[in-house]
Each structure stands twice: as structure tokens, then as C-alpha cells.
């Protein structure tokens, strides 16, 4: 039991999450190289995915009814015959709710890449699409998959900006922005690389906050908001040297953005 507890805890909580104090530098400065011949191992082991998936999606005792709290994970552990006492270990550096939220973000990002990004270039109308069109398409695809937890999204976002969770959240947001840029066809080799990821991360967070403030089932409004944001980015012919955007990739700006929006609503 002890073994399971430690390995699960490590896997769910400590993976790639550096000390929370390194929040400002970790997301941008960690090693980043994506190999084609030496693919990385899956982030979650199968049994970890099972438990977290149950916690996130179970319509009776999971996040859809209980929100991003500790209880869905306790229920999931019980349903899988694991000791409930394990949940206490989630109250360390990262919490049980954060573990579920991170699972949601990572799996939805993987799904966006597998189901939308990689097939995007095979669509019949793709030749006429600009980088911004593709970005919009991917953003909408990714946000549409929030619908499953739509009613609980605010609680999930609140988890992201807890001080102990910031390093992990920013790291994940950074990966998402990088995927969105890469698969929408960004080929920038200079400072624009940073500025684009900064603006895309900001747009994503703005859209998700907008979505969190709407009743579930209002996805048409989210889509309209995404289009507005992306075309604004395009129309302004974005000043890629803007220090503000650089601030967003350094990402502390994102944390403040989420905090201010959550307290307002």
C-alpha cells in the first residue's frame, strides 16, 4: 500500500512540477526538445489515468456534480479499490483538485493535438486557411472539450492560480500555447516566437475565462468570442515586439489576469 501511495503521489503530483518558487522561470526556461525517433513515455500510467478520469468525468460522484474538490478523487480511489487515506497526500505541494484539473488540461491538450491538430492539414479546405484561421479552429476545438466540466470551470481555474500550483499551471499553459502556435503553422525563429506564444496564451485564458462565466450550453457565444479575439490579434498585425506580450509568456501576467477575472465575477 505504501508503495502504491508513494508512486501514485509522485506520478500525479510531483511530475515535472518544480518547486513553486521557481514559478517565474520554470515554464520558459526548462529543456524543450521534441524528438521524432525517441518519443517520450506517456505522462500518466494507465492506472493513474483510470482513477483521474473517473474523478473528472463520473456523472454521479465526480467533478460534474462535486466540482474541483477533493471528494471526486476520494470517490475515484474508493471505486478502484484503493485506500481513501491516499487522498491526504494530495494536500501537499499540489492538491487533489489541482491533480484533477491538470489531468483535464493535459488530456484535452493531447486530444486536441491527436484529433484536430494532426488532421488539420488533411482537411479539404485547408489550403485556403491562414495561420489565424487554423489557430481559431484549434482554440475552438480545445474549448469545446471544456463543455464536459463547463459548470465547474471557474473552480478549476481558481485551482490554477493557487500559489502552490502556479509553476505547474504555467508550465501546462506554456505547453498549450506552444502546441497551438506550432500546429497553426508558426515558423518564427526569433523574438516573435516568444511574443506569439505570449499572445496565444493570453487569448486562450481570456476565452476560457469568458467560457467559465457563461452558463453551460452557450458554446456559440464562446465561439464568437474566440473569433473576435483571434481577428483582433490578426487585425492589429500584432506588435510582436511588445513588452506586454513578452510579459505574458513570462506568464505572471496570466496569473494576475485569471485572479482579477475570477474575483470580479
Amino acid at each position: 500500500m505504501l508503495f502504491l501511495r508513494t508512486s501514485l503521489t509522485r506520478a500525479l503530483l510531483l511530475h515535472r512540477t518544480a518547486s513553486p518558487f521557481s514559478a517565474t522561470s520554470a515554464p520558459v526556461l526548462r529543456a524543450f526538445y521534441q524528438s521524432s525517433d525517441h518519443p517520450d513515455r506517456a505522462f500518466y500510467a494507465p492506472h493513474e489515468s483510470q482513477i483521474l478520469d473517473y474523478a473528472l468525468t463520473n456523472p454521479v460522484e465526480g467533478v460534474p456534480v462535486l466540482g474541483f474538490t477533493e471528494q471526486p478523487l476520494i470517490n475515484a480511489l474508493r471505486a478502484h479499490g484503493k485506500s481513501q487515506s491516499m487522498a491526504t497526500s494530495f494536500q501537499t505541494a499540489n492538491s487533489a483538485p489541482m491533480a484533477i484539473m491538470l489531468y483535464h488540461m493535459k488530456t484535452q491538450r493531447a486530444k486536441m493535438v491527436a484529433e484536430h491538430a494532426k488532421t488539420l492539414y488533411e482537411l479539404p479546405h485547408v489550403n485556403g486557411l491562414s495561420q489565424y484561421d487554423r489557430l481559431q479552429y484549434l482554440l475552438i476545438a480545445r474549448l469545446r472539450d471544456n463543455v464536459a466540466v463547463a459548470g465547474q470551470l471557474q473552480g478549476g481555474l481558481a485551482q490554477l492560480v493557487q500559489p502552490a500550483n502556479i509553476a505547474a499551471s504555467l508550465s501546462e499553459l506554456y505547453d498549450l500555447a506552444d502546441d497551438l502556435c506550432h500546429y497553426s503553422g508558426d515558423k518564427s525563429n526569433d523574438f516573435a516566437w516568444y511574443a506569439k506564444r505570449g499572445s496565444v496564451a493570453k487569448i486562450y485564458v481570456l476565452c476560457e475565462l469568458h467560457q467559465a462565466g457563461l452558463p453551460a450550453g452557450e458554446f456559440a457565444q464562446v465561439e464568437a468570442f474566440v473569433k473576435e479575439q483571434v481577428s483582433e490579434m490578426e487585425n492589429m498585425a500584432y506588435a510582436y515586439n511588445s513588452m506586454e506580450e513578452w510579459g505574458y509568456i513570462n506568464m505572471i501576467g496570466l496569473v494576475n489576469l485569471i485572479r482579477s477575472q475570477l474575483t470580479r465575477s
Partner: protein
Amino acid sequence: MLSKSAKTVVRTRFPVRALATPAESNTTSHAPQLKYQPLSKAQKAFLERVVRVDQAGELGANYIYAGQYFVLANRYPHLKPVLKHMWEQEIHHHDTFNQLQTAKRVRPSIMTPFWKVGAFGIGLSTASLSKEAAMACTVAVETVIGGHYNEQLRVLMNQFSIGAVDAETGEVIANPPVSPEIASLKETVKQFRDEELEHLDTALEHDAEKAVPYMLLTEAIKATCKVAIWTAERI
């Protein structure tokens, strides 16, 4: 002519192969499809640094030659094709690492704007001094870059024997060949190193050593390059 007939021969062999029994075709088929182990953290970090620093270095080289060409091309017509040839190779080096940087999802050096300005400035100022000074600059830069590529090659040779299994059977392969990805990077680095050393020779042939003051110039530029490399590997 010869290669054309060789191609036809190869082509006519395919139908024969297709008629072979499964057991026979097994013995004639080449090595199994390999599935390689993931890279270690240290290997990833190394490759990330390689792509970033080489991209920045080639960007610098590209801009140094641009600066030199700007000053010297019209003043010394006989140097024009020499500089142009080297410059074009630098552009190819730079493009290659640009492609690697986007394909491998590596963060470019955040100092990029400074590398551009700095490198163009070095090219411009040494060339304004004299054509020999420009060549001395090339000697200094290529000495450091050639050595740097050699160091990278050594690590790529020694630290990248990575395990693999047969993609179909899962059987562990003893001493698998290095993956195509690493092999191709090694090839690229080797080819570029050779071309940088050619540039070094070219510069020496064009009186680099007659530059005044040669030692001061080359040592100062070498030191600058080393600081730039150290920085670009990191930020």
C-alpha cells in the same frame, strides 16, 4: 547512363520478390523496424542547447558576412565571389537550424535581436578597418565555431547509444544503430564543421594574417564568440 540501367534492374526485381513465399521474403527483407527508447533528460537538454546555440551562431555568421559583403563587395570586386560563396553557405546553415528549431520545438535564443545587431556590427566594422581585418575576423569566428561543432560531434558520438526494440515483436535489439534523427544531426554538424574550416582556410589564403593588429583582433573576436555561445546555449 550507368545509374539509369542500375535503376531498371532494381525495378524489375520487385515483382520477383512479391512472388516469394513469406518465409523467403522474410530472409531477404532488411533490418526490422526499430522503436527507440526515449531520450534522457540530459540528452534532451543537450540537443535543445545544440539547436539553439547553432541556430544563433549561424544567424551571427550570416549577419557577419552580410556586414562584410556590404562594405567589401564593391570595393574589391575580386573578393565578391569569395565572400558570396561563404555567405551563401552560412545562409544554408542558418536555414537548416531554423528548420530544426521549429520542427523540434526548441525555443530560439531570446537574445536574437542582439545577435543580429552585434554580428552585423562586427562584420561591418572589421571590414571597414581593412579587407585583411575582415578575413582575420573570419579566422577568429571559424576557429571558435569549428571547435564548438567538434565538441558537439564528440558528445553526439559518445553519449547517444540509445536502446531500441523491434517495433513488431518488442524484442530487444542488441547494439541498435543510432536513430535516423541523431544520425542526421551528426551528419549536419559534421558537414557544417567542414565548411566552417574551409572558410577558415579561405580567410588565411586571403591575407588574414596581414591584418594589423592580427592577434588583438582575433583574440578579441574569439573571446566575444565564446561569450555569445555561452549565452545562447542558455538564454
